[in-house]
Protein backbone atom coordinates (compact mmCIF):
# COMPACT_ATOMS: atom_id res chain seq x y z
CA UNK A 1 0.00 0.00 0.00
CA UNK A 2 1.79 3.15 -1.12
CA UNK A 3 2.08 5.81 1.51
CA UNK A 4 0.15 8.76 0.12
CA UNK A 5 1.56 11.25 2.57
CA UNK A 6 5.12 10.78 1.35
CA UNK A 7 5.67 13.09 -1.60
CA UNK A 8 9.11 11.86 -2.56
CA UNK A 9 10.89 8.71 -1.55
CA UNK A 10 14.42 7.89 -2.68
CA UNK A 11 15.83 4.45 -2.07
CA UNK A 12 19.50 3.61 -2.51
CA UNK A 13 19.80 6.21 -5.25
CA UNK A 14 23.11 6.20 -7.08
CA UNK A 15 24.46 7.88 -10.15
CA UNK A 16 27.86 7.51 -11.76
CA UNK A 17 29.21 9.55 -14.62
CA UNK A 18 31.95 7.32 -15.86
CA UNK A 19 34.43 7.07 -13.02
CA UNK A 20 32.79 9.88 -11.02
CA UNK A 21 30.24 8.76 -8.49
CA UNK A 22 28.10 11.89 -8.31
CA UNK A 23 25.47 10.34 -6.05
CA UNK A 24 26.65 7.51 -3.86
CA UNK A 25 23.56 6.02 -2.25
CA UNK A 26 20.84 8.35 -1.07
CA UNK A 27 17.78 7.35 0.95
CA UNK A 28 15.30 10.06 1.71
CA UNK A 29 11.65 10.64 2.45
CA UNK A 30 10.03 13.99 1.95
CA UNK A 31 6.55 14.51 3.31
CA UNK A 32 3.71 16.13 1.45
CA UNK A 33 3.70 19.87 1.88
CA UNK A 34 7.20 20.09 3.27
CA UNK A 35 9.65 22.82 2.41
CA UNK A 36 12.70 20.67 2.11
CA UNK A 37 16.23 21.93 1.47
CA UNK A 38 19.22 20.08 0.09
CA UNK A 39 22.33 21.82 1.30
CA UNK A 40 25.90 21.03 0.43
CA UNK A 41 29.09 22.31 -1.09
CA UNK A 42 29.63 22.55 -4.81
CA UNK A 43 29.88 19.17 -6.49
CA UNK A 44 28.24 17.26 -3.67
CA UNK A 45 25.56 15.81 -5.92
CA UNK A 46 22.52 17.93 -5.05
CA UNK A 47 21.70 18.84 -8.63
CA UNK A 48 22.14 15.27 -9.74
CA UNK A 49 19.63 14.04 -7.16
CA UNK A 50 17.17 16.70 -8.24
CA UNK A 51 17.60 15.77 -11.88
CA UNK A 52 16.95 12.13 -11.10
CA UNK A 53 13.74 13.09 -9.35
CA UNK A 54 12.68 15.19 -12.32
CA UNK A 55 13.65 12.40 -14.70
CA UNK A 56 16.44 14.13 -16.63
CA UNK A 57 18.96 11.56 -15.48
CA UNK A 58 18.25 7.93 -14.89
CA UNK A 59 19.78 6.45 -11.75
CA UNK A 60 22.59 3.95 -11.94
CA UNK A 61 20.89 2.17 -9.08
CA UNK A 62 18.00 2.72 -6.68
CA UNK A 63 14.53 4.04 -7.16
CA UNK A 64 12.53 7.23 -7.11
CA UNK A 65 8.94 7.25 -5.83
CA UNK A 66 6.56 10.13 -6.19
CA UNK A 67 3.41 9.96 -4.09
CA UNK A 68 4.05 6.29 -3.49
CA UNK A 69 4.39 5.46 -7.17
CA UNK A 70 7.68 4.21 -8.59
CA UNK A 71 8.63 6.58 -11.39
CA UNK A 72 12.23 5.54 -11.81
CA UNK A 73 11.73 4.52 -15.42
CA UNK A 74 9.34 7.27 -16.43
CA UNK A 75 10.19 10.18 -18.71
CA UNK A 76 10.14 13.73 -17.30
CA UNK A 77 6.86 14.55 -19.02
CA UNK A 78 5.23 11.59 -17.32
CA UNK A 79 6.10 12.77 -13.82
CA UNK A 80 4.00 14.99 -11.70
CA UNK A 81 6.83 17.30 -10.71
CA UNK A 82 8.00 20.59 -12.10
CA UNK A 83 11.36 22.24 -11.95
CA UNK A 84 12.58 25.79 -11.52
CA UNK A 85 15.94 25.69 -13.21
CA UNK A 86 18.99 27.43 -11.90
CA UNK A 87 19.25 29.50 -15.06
CA UNK A 88 15.43 29.66 -15.20
CA UNK A 89 15.44 28.16 -18.73
CA UNK A 90 12.70 30.50 -19.87
CA UNK A 91 11.85 30.09 -23.53
CA UNK A 92 13.44 33.16 -25.05
CA UNK A 93 11.11 33.26 -28.04
CA UNK A 94 7.91 33.34 -26.00
CA UNK A 95 6.33 36.10 -23.99
CA UNK A 96 5.99 35.82 -20.24
CA UNK A 97 2.40 34.72 -20.62
CA UNK A 98 3.26 32.11 -23.24
CA UNK A 99 5.98 30.78 -21.02
CA UNK A 100 3.59 30.38 -18.13
CA UNK A 101 0.86 28.92 -20.32
CA UNK A 102 3.22 26.44 -21.91
CA UNK A 103 2.59 23.54 -19.56
CA UNK A 104 -1.19 23.97 -19.82
CA UNK A 105 -1.06 24.28 -23.56
CA UNK A 106 0.87 21.05 -23.78
CA UNK A 107 -1.76 19.43 -21.61
CA UNK A 108 -4.45 20.75 -23.94
CA UNK A 109 -6.16 22.88 -21.33
CA UNK A 110 -8.70 25.12 -23.03
CA UNK A 111 -7.74 28.60 -24.06
CA UNK A 112 -9.86 30.46 -21.56
CA UNK A 113 -8.95 28.36 -18.56
CA UNK A 114 -5.32 28.50 -19.59
CA UNK A 115 -5.34 32.26 -19.72
CA UNK A 116 -7.09 32.47 -16.42
CA UNK A 117 -4.82 30.11 -14.56
CA UNK A 118 -1.69 31.67 -16.03
CA UNK A 119 -2.88 35.12 -15.04
CA UNK A 120 -3.58 33.89 -11.54
CA UNK A 121 -0.13 32.32 -11.32
CA UNK A 122 1.48 35.54 -12.49
CA UNK A 123 -0.54 37.43 -9.92
CA UNK A 124 0.63 35.11 -7.18
CA UNK A 125 4.24 35.95 -8.02
CA UNK A 126 3.28 39.63 -8.33
CA UNK A 127 3.97 39.96 -12.04
CA UNK A 128 0.68 41.33 -13.31
CA UNK A 129 1.27 43.61 -16.23
CA UNK A 130 4.35 41.79 -17.45
CA UNK A 131 2.44 39.29 -19.59
CA UNK A 132 3.50 40.67 -22.95
CA UNK A 133 7.18 41.14 -22.21
CA UNK A 134 9.89 38.80 -23.42
CA UNK A 135 12.24 37.12 -20.93
CA UNK A 136 15.08 39.32 -22.18
CA UNK A 137 13.25 42.38 -20.94
CA UNK A 138 13.08 41.19 -17.34
CA UNK A 139 15.46 41.56 -14.44
CA UNK A 140 16.91 38.51 -12.74
CA UNK A 141 14.37 38.51 -9.95
CA UNK A 142 11.50 38.89 -12.36
CA UNK A 143 12.76 36.04 -14.47
CA UNK A 144 12.98 33.86 -11.44
CA UNK A 145 9.38 34.62 -10.63
CA UNK A 146 8.28 33.79 -14.17
CA UNK A 147 10.04 30.46 -13.86
CA UNK A 148 8.23 29.91 -10.61
CA UNK A 149 4.86 30.80 -12.08
CA UNK A 150 5.52 28.59 -15.06
CA UNK A 151 6.10 25.64 -12.77
CA UNK A 152 3.37 26.41 -10.25
CA UNK A 153 0.62 26.86 -12.78
CA UNK A 154 0.73 23.12 -13.42
CA UNK A 155 -0.02 22.42 -9.75
CA UNK A 156 2.59 19.69 -9.55
CA UNK A 157 2.80 17.41 -6.58
CA UNK A 158 6.39 18.47 -5.99
CA UNK A 159 8.23 21.56 -7.08
CA UNK A 160 11.97 21.19 -7.56
CA UNK A 161 14.08 24.31 -7.27
CA UNK A 162 17.76 24.26 -8.15
CA UNK A 163 19.41 27.22 -6.45
CA UNK A 164 16.73 29.52 -7.72
CA UNK A 165 18.17 32.49 -5.87
CA UNK A 166 21.80 31.88 -6.72
CA UNK A 167 22.01 34.54 -9.37
CA UNK A 168 20.30 37.33 -7.46
CA UNK A 169 21.94 40.03 -5.45
CA UNK A 170 21.76 39.91 -1.71
CA UNK A 171 18.92 42.34 -1.12
CA UNK A 172 16.72 40.85 -3.79
CA UNK A 173 17.64 37.43 -2.61
CA UNK A 174 16.46 38.14 0.90
CA UNK A 175 13.20 39.50 -0.42
CA UNK A 176 12.71 36.48 -2.63
CA UNK A 177 13.40 34.13 0.25
CA UNK A 178 10.48 35.62 2.13
CA UNK A 179 8.24 35.57 -0.94
CA UNK A 180 9.09 32.01 -1.79
CA UNK A 181 8.38 30.84 1.68
CA UNK A 182 5.03 32.58 1.77
CA UNK A 183 4.12 31.26 -1.63
CA UNK A 184 4.84 27.73 -0.54
CA UNK A 185 2.61 28.15 2.48
CA UNK A 186 -0.11 29.49 0.27
CA UNK A 187 -0.11 26.79 -2.39
CA UNK A 188 0.77 23.93 -0.07
CA UNK A 189 2.92 22.19 -2.65
CA UNK A 190 5.99 20.26 -1.56
CA UNK A 191 9.09 22.33 -2.28
CA UNK A 192 12.41 20.58 -2.78
CA UNK A 193 15.00 23.26 -2.72
CA UNK A 194 18.71 23.04 -3.57
CA UNK A 195 21.11 25.58 -2.15
CA UNK A 196 24.65 25.94 -0.98
CA UNK A 197 23.83 28.87 1.26
CA UNK A 198 23.54 27.71 4.87
CA UNK A 199 21.55 30.70 6.05
CA UNK A 200 19.09 30.30 3.24
CA UNK A 201 18.58 26.67 4.12
CA UNK A 202 18.25 27.42 7.82
CA UNK A 203 15.75 30.23 7.49
CA UNK A 204 13.51 28.81 4.83
CA UNK A 205 13.12 25.10 5.27
CA UNK A 206 11.16 22.74 7.41
CA UNK A 207 13.88 20.14 7.07
CA UNK A 208 17.38 20.08 5.63
CA UNK A 209 19.46 17.31 4.14
CA UNK A 210 23.17 18.11 4.22
CA UNK A 211 25.07 16.59 1.32
CA UNK A 212 28.71 15.83 1.02
CA UNK A 213 30.45 13.90 -1.72
CA UNK A 214 27.31 12.27 -3.02
CA UNK A 215 25.95 11.23 0.36
CA UNK A 216 23.56 12.67 2.87
CA UNK A 217 25.44 13.49 6.04
CA UNK A 218 22.45 14.50 8.13
CA UNK A 219 18.73 15.12 7.77
CA UNK A 220 16.84 17.20 10.26
CA UNK A 221 15.14 20.45 11.11
CA UNK A 222 17.29 23.57 10.85
CA UNK A 223 17.75 23.64 14.59
CA UNK A 224 18.77 19.99 14.74
CA UNK A 225 21.28 20.40 12.02
CA UNK A 226 22.67 23.64 13.38
CA UNK A 227 22.69 22.80 17.03
CA UNK A 228 23.39 19.10 16.97
CA UNK A 229 25.46 18.45 13.88
CA UNK A 230 26.13 14.76 13.67
CA UNK A 231 29.44 14.94 11.84
CA UNK A 232 32.36 17.34 11.79
CA UNK A 233 31.51 18.14 8.20
CA UNK A 234 28.02 19.29 9.10
CA UNK A 235 29.33 21.25 12.06
CA UNK A 236 31.77 23.06 9.80
CA UNK A 237 29.51 23.56 6.87
CA UNK A 238 26.42 24.77 8.69
CA UNK A 239 27.57 27.80 10.64
CA UNK A 240 30.97 28.79 11.91
CA UNK A 241 32.70 26.05 13.76
CA UNK A 242 34.79 27.19 16.75
CA UNK A 243 37.05 24.32 17.65
CA UNK A 244 38.77 23.77 20.95
CA UNK A 245 41.16 20.85 21.01
CA UNK A 246 44.35 19.45 22.45
CA UNK A 247 45.94 21.36 25.30
CA UNK A 248 43.32 24.08 25.18
CA UNK A 249 40.51 21.56 25.58
CA UNK A 250 42.23 20.11 28.56
CA UNK A 251 42.85 23.45 30.16
CA UNK A 252 39.47 25.00 29.43
CA UNK A 253 37.11 22.05 29.48
CA UNK A 254 39.15 19.63 31.55
CA UNK A 255 38.68 16.96 28.89
CA UNK A 256 40.53 15.42 25.97
CA UNK A 257 39.11 15.60 22.49
CA UNK A 258 37.82 18.19 20.05
CA UNK A 259 34.89 20.33 20.98
CA UNK A 260 32.93 22.96 19.21
CA UNK A 261 30.86 25.86 20.38
CA UNK A 262 29.00 28.28 18.14
CA UNK A 263 30.20 31.91 18.17
CA UNK A 264 26.82 33.25 19.22
CA UNK A 265 26.76 31.02 22.26
CA UNK A 266 29.79 32.74 23.73
CA UNK A 267 29.37 35.66 26.11
CA UNK A 268 32.18 38.20 26.07
CA UNK A 269 32.85 39.47 29.59
CA UNK A 270 34.98 42.58 29.61
CA UNK A 271 36.22 41.68 33.04
CA UNK A 272 38.67 38.82 32.81
CA UNK A 273 37.66 37.81 36.31
CA UNK A 274 33.98 37.66 35.52
CA UNK A 275 32.23 34.84 37.39
CA UNK A 276 31.53 31.56 35.67
CA UNK A 277 28.33 29.76 36.61
CA UNK A 278 28.14 26.14 37.63
CA UNK A 279 26.75 24.95 34.35
CA UNK A 280 29.11 27.19 32.46
CA UNK A 281 32.61 27.06 31.09
CA UNK A 282 34.93 30.03 30.73
CA UNK A 283 38.22 30.89 29.09
CA UNK A 284 40.43 33.96 29.27
CA UNK A 285 42.01 35.56 26.27
CA UNK A 286 42.87 38.69 24.32
CA UNK A 287 40.75 40.30 21.61
CA UNK A 288 42.81 39.99 18.43
CA UNK A 289 40.35 41.38 15.98
CA UNK A 290 37.05 43.23 16.03
CA UNK A 291 34.88 43.17 12.95
CA UNK A 292 31.89 45.46 12.95
CA UNK A 293 29.07 44.02 10.88
CA UNK A 294 26.20 46.40 11.51
CA UNK A 295 23.74 44.26 13.38
CA UNK A 296 26.46 42.34 15.14
CA UNK A 297 30.15 42.46 15.87
CA UNK A 298 32.56 39.59 15.50
CA UNK A 299 35.43 39.31 17.89
CA UNK A 300 38.37 37.05 17.36
CA UNK A 301 39.80 36.10 20.71
CA UNK A 302 43.16 34.43 21.22
CA UNK A 303 42.84 32.17 24.22
CA UNK A 304 45.59 32.13 26.81
CA UNK A 305 45.26 28.36 26.81
CA UNK A 306 45.93 28.32 23.06
CA UNK A 307 43.67 28.41 20.04
CA UNK A 308 41.36 31.20 18.95
CA UNK A 309 37.61 31.51 19.19
CA UNK A 310 35.22 33.65 17.23
CA UNK A 311 32.57 35.46 19.25
CA UNK A 312 29.43 36.93 17.79
CA UNK A 313 27.78 39.71 19.70
CA UNK A 314 24.61 41.45 18.73
CA UNK A 315 25.03 45.23 18.64
CA UNK A 316 22.02 45.90 20.79
CA UNK A 317 23.08 48.73 22.97
CA UNK A 318 26.66 49.27 22.01
CA UNK A 319 27.75 51.51 19.20
CA UNK A 320 30.58 50.79 16.82
CA UNK A 321 32.81 53.22 18.69
CA UNK A 322 32.54 51.18 21.81
CA UNK A 323 33.11 47.81 20.22
CA UNK A 324 36.12 48.69 18.13
CA UNK A 325 37.87 50.01 21.21
CA UNK A 326 37.94 46.45 22.47
CA UNK A 327 40.80 45.39 20.25
CA UNK A 328 43.61 44.20 22.52
CA UNK A 329 41.40 43.99 25.60
CA UNK A 330 41.67 41.13 28.04
CA UNK A 331 38.34 39.31 28.17
CA UNK A 332 36.73 36.25 29.55
CA UNK A 333 34.53 34.10 27.34
CA UNK A 334 31.68 32.31 29.09
CA UNK A 335 29.26 29.74 27.71
CA UNK A 336 26.75 27.24 28.88
CA UNK A 337 28.06 23.70 28.84
CA UNK A 338 25.07 22.39 26.98
CA UNK A 339 26.18 24.39 23.90
CA UNK A 340 29.48 22.54 23.66
CA UNK A 341 29.47 19.51 21.52
CA UNK A 342 32.15 16.97 20.91
CA UNK A 343 33.32 16.49 17.38
CA UNK A 344 33.95 12.92 16.35
CA UNK A 345 36.64 13.25 13.75
Amino acid at each position, binding site marked *: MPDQSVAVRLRGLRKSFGPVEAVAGVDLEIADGEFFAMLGPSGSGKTTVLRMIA*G*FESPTAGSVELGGRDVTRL*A*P*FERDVNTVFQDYALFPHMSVLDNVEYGLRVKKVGRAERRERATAALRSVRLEGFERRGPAQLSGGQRQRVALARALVNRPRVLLLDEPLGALDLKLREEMQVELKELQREVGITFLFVTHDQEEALTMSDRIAVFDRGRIEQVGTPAEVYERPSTPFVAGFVGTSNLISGEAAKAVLGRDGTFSVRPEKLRLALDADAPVGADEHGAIGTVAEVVYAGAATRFVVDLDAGGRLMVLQQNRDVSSMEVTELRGARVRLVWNRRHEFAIVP
Partner: protein
Amino acid sequence: MNLSRGARLALRLALALGLVVIYVPLAIVLLNSFNADRTFAWPPTGFTTRWWSAAWGSSGVRDALWTSVKAGAGATAIALVLGTMAAFAVQRHRFFGRDTVSLLIVLPIALPGIVTGIALNNAFRTILEPFGVGLGLFTVIVGHATFCVVTVHNNVLARLRRTGRNAEEASADLGADPFTTFRLVTFPMMRSALLASGLLAFALSFDEIIVTTFTAGAGVRTLPIWIFENLFRPNQAPVVNVVAAALIVLSVVPIYLAQRLSGTTSTH
Protein backbone atom coordinates in the same frame (compact mmCIF):
# COMPACT_ATOMS: atom_id res chain seq x y z
CA MET B 1 18.39 15.02 -22.45
CA ASN B 2 14.87 13.91 -22.01
CA LEU B 3 14.21 11.97 -25.15
CA SER B 4 12.42 8.71 -25.30
CA ARG B 5 14.44 5.67 -26.12
CA GLY B 6 12.69 5.42 -29.45
CA ALA B 7 13.50 9.01 -30.35
CA ARG B 8 17.11 8.58 -29.39
CA LEU B 9 17.36 5.48 -31.44
CA ALA B 10 15.69 7.13 -34.41
CA LEU B 11 18.02 10.11 -34.22
CA ARG B 12 21.10 7.95 -33.95
CA LEU B 13 19.84 5.96 -36.87
CA ALA B 14 19.30 9.12 -38.88
CA LEU B 15 22.84 10.19 -38.12
CA ALA B 16 24.22 6.82 -39.10
CA LEU B 17 22.18 6.76 -42.29
CA GLY B 18 23.22 10.29 -43.12
CA LEU B 19 26.85 9.37 -42.73
CA VAL B 20 26.30 6.36 -44.94
CA VAL B 21 24.75 8.59 -47.57
CA ILE B 22 27.72 10.92 -47.28
CA TYR B 23 30.29 8.20 -47.54
CA VAL B 24 28.88 5.79 -50.09
CA PRO B 25 29.68 8.06 -53.05
CA LEU B 26 33.12 8.66 -51.61
CA ALA B 27 33.58 4.92 -51.34
CA ILE B 28 32.58 4.63 -54.96
CA VAL B 29 35.22 7.19 -55.84
CA LEU B 30 37.77 5.16 -53.96
CA LEU B 31 36.59 1.97 -55.55
CA ASN B 32 36.63 3.45 -59.01
CA SER B 33 40.19 4.52 -58.55
CA PHE B 34 40.95 0.80 -58.75
CA ASN B 35 38.42 0.16 -61.49
CA ALA B 36 40.05 -1.13 -64.63
CA ASP B 37 37.29 0.42 -66.70
CA ARG B 38 38.14 3.86 -67.94
CA THR B 39 34.68 5.33 -67.60
CA PHE B 40 33.77 3.95 -64.20
CA ALA B 41 31.64 1.10 -65.47
CA TRP B 42 29.52 -0.31 -62.68
CA PRO B 43 30.11 -2.86 -61.33
CA PRO B 44 33.88 -2.47 -61.72
CA THR B 45 35.19 -4.57 -64.52
CA GLY B 46 38.46 -5.41 -62.88
CA PHE B 47 41.06 -4.36 -60.38
CA THR B 48 44.02 -2.24 -61.32
CA THR B 49 46.50 0.02 -59.63
CA ARG B 50 47.66 1.61 -62.83
CA TRP B 51 45.61 4.75 -62.20
CA TRP B 52 47.36 5.20 -58.90
CA SER B 53 50.75 4.86 -60.49
CA ALA B 54 49.66 7.17 -63.29
CA ALA B 55 48.55 9.74 -60.75
CA TRP B 56 51.77 9.33 -58.87
CA GLY B 57 53.74 10.00 -62.02
CA SER B 58 51.62 12.89 -63.16
CA SER B 59 53.36 16.19 -62.78
CA GLY B 60 50.16 17.92 -63.84
CA VAL B 61 48.48 16.78 -60.64
CA ARG B 62 51.36 17.96 -58.56
CA ASP B 63 51.53 21.34 -60.27
CA ALA B 64 47.80 21.77 -59.96
CA LEU B 65 47.87 20.76 -56.32
CA TRP B 66 50.62 23.24 -55.67
CA THR B 67 48.72 25.97 -57.51
CA SER B 68 45.62 25.20 -55.47
CA VAL B 69 47.59 25.32 -52.27
CA LYS B 70 49.05 28.67 -53.23
CA ALA B 71 45.67 30.03 -54.23
CA GLY B 72 44.04 28.68 -51.09
CA ALA B 73 46.80 29.97 -48.85
CA GLY B 74 46.72 33.40 -50.46
CA ALA B 75 42.95 33.68 -50.33
CA THR B 76 42.88 32.40 -46.77
CA ALA B 77 45.52 34.87 -45.67
CA ILE B 78 43.64 37.79 -47.19
CA ALA B 79 40.35 36.53 -45.82
CA LEU B 80 41.86 36.19 -42.36
CA VAL B 81 43.09 39.75 -42.37
CA LEU B 82 40.01 41.32 -43.89
CA GLY B 83 37.54 39.14 -42.04
CA THR B 84 39.18 39.79 -38.71
CA MET B 85 39.31 43.52 -39.27
CA ALA B 86 35.68 43.63 -40.27
CA ALA B 87 34.67 41.49 -37.32
CA PHE B 88 36.50 43.79 -34.93
CA ALA B 89 34.90 46.82 -36.47
CA VAL B 90 31.43 45.34 -36.27
CA GLN B 91 31.80 43.89 -32.80
CA ARG B 92 33.75 46.65 -31.13
CA HIS B 93 32.13 49.72 -32.60
CA ARG B 94 28.71 51.11 -33.09
CA PHE B 95 28.39 53.01 -36.31
CA PHE B 96 25.95 53.89 -38.97
CA GLY B 97 25.57 51.15 -41.54
CA ARG B 98 26.88 48.41 -39.30
CA ASP B 99 24.22 46.00 -40.48
CA THR B 100 25.07 46.82 -44.04
CA VAL B 101 28.65 45.76 -43.49
CA SER B 102 27.47 42.36 -42.31
CA LEU B 103 25.24 42.02 -45.34
CA LEU B 104 28.05 43.08 -47.63
CA ILE B 105 30.31 40.40 -46.24
CA VAL B 106 27.70 37.71 -46.74
CA LEU B 107 26.96 38.80 -50.28
CA PRO B 108 29.84 37.14 -52.16
CA ILE B 109 28.94 33.74 -50.77
CA ALA B 110 25.21 34.29 -51.09
CA LEU B 111 25.31 35.30 -54.72
CA PRO B 112 25.76 32.44 -57.16
CA GLY B 113 29.40 31.81 -58.00
CA ILE B 114 28.86 32.40 -61.66
CA VAL B 115 27.70 35.94 -60.96
CA THR B 116 30.73 36.69 -58.82
CA GLY B 117 32.85 35.01 -61.46
CA ILE B 118 31.69 36.98 -64.44
CA ALA B 119 31.53 40.22 -62.50
CA LEU B 120 35.13 39.87 -61.37
CA ASN B 121 36.22 38.66 -64.77
CA ASN B 122 34.66 41.68 -66.38
CA ALA B 123 36.15 44.03 -63.83
CA PHE B 124 39.62 42.54 -64.03
CA ARG B 125 39.65 42.73 -67.73
CA THR B 126 38.46 46.29 -67.97
CA ILE B 127 40.49 47.61 -65.06
CA LEU B 128 43.63 45.53 -64.86
CA GLU B 129 44.33 44.96 -68.49
CA PRO B 130 45.10 48.56 -69.36
CA PHE B 131 47.85 48.31 -66.79
CA GLY B 132 49.24 45.26 -68.48
CA VAL B 133 48.14 42.96 -65.68
CA GLY B 134 46.40 39.90 -66.98
CA LEU B 135 44.42 37.20 -65.27
CA GLY B 136 46.64 34.92 -63.29
CA LEU B 137 47.06 33.32 -59.93
CA PHE B 138 46.69 36.74 -58.39
CA THR B 139 43.19 37.21 -59.75
CA VAL B 140 42.21 33.73 -58.58
CA ILE B 141 43.33 34.65 -55.10
CA VAL B 142 41.39 37.89 -55.22
CA GLY B 143 38.28 36.07 -56.39
CA HIS B 144 38.53 33.41 -53.73
CA ALA B 145 39.34 35.83 -50.94
CA THR B 146 36.18 37.73 -51.76
CA PHE B 147 33.91 34.88 -50.79
CA CYS B 148 36.17 33.46 -48.08
CA VAL B 149 36.02 36.61 -45.99
CA VAL B 150 32.62 35.66 -44.65
CA THR B 151 33.73 32.46 -42.94
CA VAL B 152 36.47 34.27 -41.08
CA HIS B 153 34.29 37.23 -40.28
CA ASN B 154 31.50 35.17 -38.82
CA ASN B 155 33.76 32.87 -36.85
CA VAL B 156 35.79 35.69 -35.39
CA LEU B 157 32.64 37.64 -34.63
CA ALA B 158 31.18 34.71 -32.74
CA ARG B 159 34.39 34.24 -30.83
CA LEU B 160 34.64 37.92 -29.96
CA ARG B 161 31.09 37.84 -28.69
CA ARG B 162 31.75 34.79 -26.61
CA THR B 163 35.03 35.88 -25.08
CA GLY B 164 33.93 39.43 -24.47
CA ARG B 165 36.39 42.17 -23.81
CA ASN B 166 37.42 41.18 -20.32
CA ALA B 167 40.75 39.63 -21.10
CA GLU B 168 41.70 42.56 -23.30
CA GLU B 169 40.70 45.03 -20.66
CA ALA B 170 42.71 43.09 -18.13
CA SER B 171 45.69 43.32 -20.43
CA ALA B 172 45.31 47.07 -20.91
CA ASP B 173 44.82 47.38 -17.20
CA LEU B 174 48.14 45.64 -16.66
CA GLY B 175 49.87 48.20 -18.82
CA ALA B 176 49.88 46.62 -22.26
CA ASP B 177 49.17 48.86 -25.23
CA PRO B 178 46.68 47.55 -27.80
CA PHE B 179 49.38 46.16 -30.07
CA THR B 180 50.90 44.14 -27.27
CA THR B 181 47.44 43.13 -26.13
CA PHE B 182 46.64 41.85 -29.57
CA ARG B 183 49.83 39.87 -29.75
CA LEU B 184 49.72 38.36 -26.30
CA VAL B 185 46.03 38.07 -25.51
CA THR B 186 43.56 38.71 -28.30
CA PHE B 187 45.30 36.73 -30.96
CA PRO B 188 46.03 33.65 -28.84
CA MET B 189 42.44 33.61 -27.65
CA MET B 190 41.14 33.84 -31.18
CA ARG B 191 43.62 31.41 -32.57
CA SER B 192 41.31 28.45 -32.64
CA ALA B 193 38.55 30.48 -34.27
CA LEU B 194 41.02 31.74 -36.85
CA LEU B 195 42.27 28.25 -37.41
CA ALA B 196 38.81 26.79 -37.86
CA SER B 197 37.65 29.56 -40.15
CA GLY B 198 40.93 29.55 -42.03
CA LEU B 199 40.54 25.87 -42.64
CA LEU B 200 37.02 26.32 -43.88
CA ALA B 201 38.12 29.20 -46.08
CA PHE B 202 40.93 27.09 -47.45
CA ALA B 203 38.54 24.23 -48.14
CA LEU B 204 36.14 26.57 -49.92
CA SER B 205 38.93 27.91 -52.07
CA PHE B 206 40.44 24.51 -52.63
CA ASP B 207 37.30 23.07 -54.21
CA GLU B 208 36.11 26.19 -55.99
CA ILE B 209 35.71 25.87 -59.70
CA ILE B 210 33.20 28.38 -60.96
CA VAL B 211 34.81 31.61 -59.82
CA THR B 212 38.15 30.06 -60.63
CA THR B 213 37.10 29.36 -64.18
CA PHE B 214 36.45 33.01 -64.71
CA THR B 215 39.42 34.43 -62.87
CA ALA B 216 42.27 32.07 -63.73
CA GLY B 217 44.77 33.23 -66.29
CA ALA B 218 46.95 31.32 -68.73
CA GLY B 219 48.81 28.43 -67.23
CA VAL B 220 47.03 28.79 -63.89
CA ARG B 221 45.53 25.42 -63.29
CA THR B 222 44.13 24.79 -59.86
CA LEU B 223 43.29 21.27 -58.89
CA PRO B 224 39.57 21.58 -59.64
CA ILE B 225 40.41 23.04 -63.03
CA TRP B 226 42.81 20.21 -63.66
CA ILE B 227 40.12 17.79 -62.59
CA PHE B 228 37.61 19.52 -64.81
CA GLU B 229 39.91 19.27 -67.79
CA ASN B 230 40.85 15.72 -67.12
CA LEU B 231 37.58 14.29 -65.98
CA PHE B 232 36.34 14.76 -69.49
CA ARG B 233 39.16 12.84 -71.06
CA PRO B 234 38.44 9.16 -71.02
CA ASN B 235 42.06 8.26 -70.45
CA GLN B 236 42.36 10.55 -67.51
CA ALA B 237 39.07 10.23 -65.66
CA PRO B 238 40.25 7.31 -63.49
CA VAL B 239 43.34 9.27 -62.51
CA VAL B 240 41.03 12.02 -61.33
CA ASN B 241 39.36 9.49 -59.08
CA VAL B 242 42.69 8.62 -57.60
CA VAL B 243 43.39 12.25 -56.86
CA ALA B 244 40.00 12.71 -55.22
CA ALA B 245 40.39 9.56 -53.15
CA ALA B 246 43.84 10.64 -52.04
CA LEU B 247 42.50 14.07 -51.12
CA ILE B 248 39.75 12.62 -48.98
CA VAL B 249 42.23 10.55 -47.08
CA LEU B 250 44.74 13.35 -46.73
CA SER B 251 42.17 15.94 -45.71
CA VAL B 252 41.56 14.15 -42.45
CA VAL B 253 44.96 15.26 -41.25
CA PRO B 254 44.49 19.05 -41.35
CA ILE B 255 40.92 18.82 -40.16
CA TYR B 256 41.88 16.61 -37.28
CA LEU B 257 44.74 18.84 -36.28
CA ALA B 258 42.56 21.92 -36.43
CA GLN B 259 39.86 20.23 -34.40
CA ARG B 260 42.37 19.20 -31.81
CA LEU B 261 43.92 22.61 -31.56
CA SER B 262 40.62 24.38 -31.37
CA GLY B 263 39.30 21.76 -29.00
CA THR B 264 42.01 22.32 -26.45
CA THR B 265 42.06 26.09 -26.55
CA SER B 266 38.39 26.82 -26.83
CA THR B 267 37.30 25.27 -23.59
CA HIS B 268 36.74 28.82 -22.42
